[in-house]
């Protein structure tokens, strides 16, 4: 980790929370790369796909971004969430791992690109209501903007935002720790 990374990431996240979407996209891309490296190094045996951990961590970061204190460092916050989601992923698959926090603090990642395969998030997407699912798919997989999505379904932009937000929250909820 360099102090520059830290400063840049906190600047981006502050801007994102203030509503700057470009800063948020930039932030999420960088975090995805860091968490991917982290997950790949931690997952030595199979059973857990690192990319699932990346996606679950990004979702958790998104729905819990109000827990970040603007004067606190971002990276320890990100890695604490990633570690929590990683441990949960192992637990769900009936494995046990031990991770020391100190160890994590030193293992900072080089950006790595993703591998493509069937994702847990897809299964979570399937569990959404049809309206939420089509909005989330339009914005994500089809890459439409809020406005385009609203036009496509003939609903207001506000309705799109609400469906998107609720859909994402519902997906994140599916990955809560300790679920049955």
């Amino acid at each position: 980790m360099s102090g520059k990374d830290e400063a840049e990431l906190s600047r981006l996240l502050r801007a994102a929370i203030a509503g700057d979407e470009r800063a948020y996209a930039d932030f999420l891309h960088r975090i995805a790369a860091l968490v991917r490296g982290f997950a790949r190094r931690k997952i030595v045996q199979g059973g857990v796909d690192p990319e699932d951990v990346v996606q679950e961590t990004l979702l958790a970061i998104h729905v819990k971004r109000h827990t970040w204190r603007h004067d606190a460092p971002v990276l320890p916050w990100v890695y604490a969430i990633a570690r929590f989601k990683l441990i949960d992923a192992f637990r769900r698959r009936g494995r046990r791992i031990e991770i020391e926090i100190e160890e994590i603090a030193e293992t900072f990642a080089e950006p790595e690109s993703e591998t493509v395969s069937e994702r847990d998030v897809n299964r979570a997407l399937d569990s959404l209501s049809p309206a939420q699912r089509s909005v989330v798919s339009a914005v994500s997989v089809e890459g439409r903007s809020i406005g385009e999505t609203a036009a496509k379904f003939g609903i207001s932009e506000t309705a799109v935002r609400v469906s998107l937000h609720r859909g994402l929250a519902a997906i994140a909820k599916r990955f809560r720790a300790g679920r049955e």
Partner: protein
Amino acid sequence: MRTEDLVKALDADARSKALPLGAAWWLAAGAAIVIAAAVFWLMIGPRPDIAIAMHTMRFLSKFVFTIALAASAFVLVRAMSTPGASTGRAASWMIAAPLLVIVAVILELFAVPASDWGTRLVGTNMVICLTFIPLIGIGPLVVFLAVLRHGAPTRPVLAGAAAGLLAGGLAATFYAAHCFDDSPLFVGTWYTIAVAILAVLGALGGRLFVRW
């Protein structure tokens, strides 16, 4: 869904807002105090001789213990609800309240003849103490568990227990104004058990409800 696509969806939701966790804790503290005060006034109220009692060290010492517990637990539970926040220093402050009680107990043992230790410890209303501290504290505990849910504690069970200690410290502060037993021997025993009940309930609540 590729991660790239997920990022697009999250990014499009960038403008959604949630109450910042720090503000949520202060709101919760205010709500919890109001709830505890309401339950306290409706069910038991302060002891009639409170004006006189206020001039005694033993009566006042109870508030020192309970406020020390509530304050240190508040700092700890706030830290525990934030991922990556260091909790070491906050956790070490949790020793303050027990330490104060232990010092007071030792002083009490010197101040009071050994023949009276038993009656001081048993007191007059331990059952009321064990009933009303959890009863006053349960509402605040629910509020604090809700904030933990709003937050992101990486150790939910421990965070729930800390929330229980906070609810316990708050409830005991109110209850102390009602209670006629001011001896540290009584407080150190029965208040501790009553607060522990809330801590256990908090841990259980953390396990069952605080998932993210």
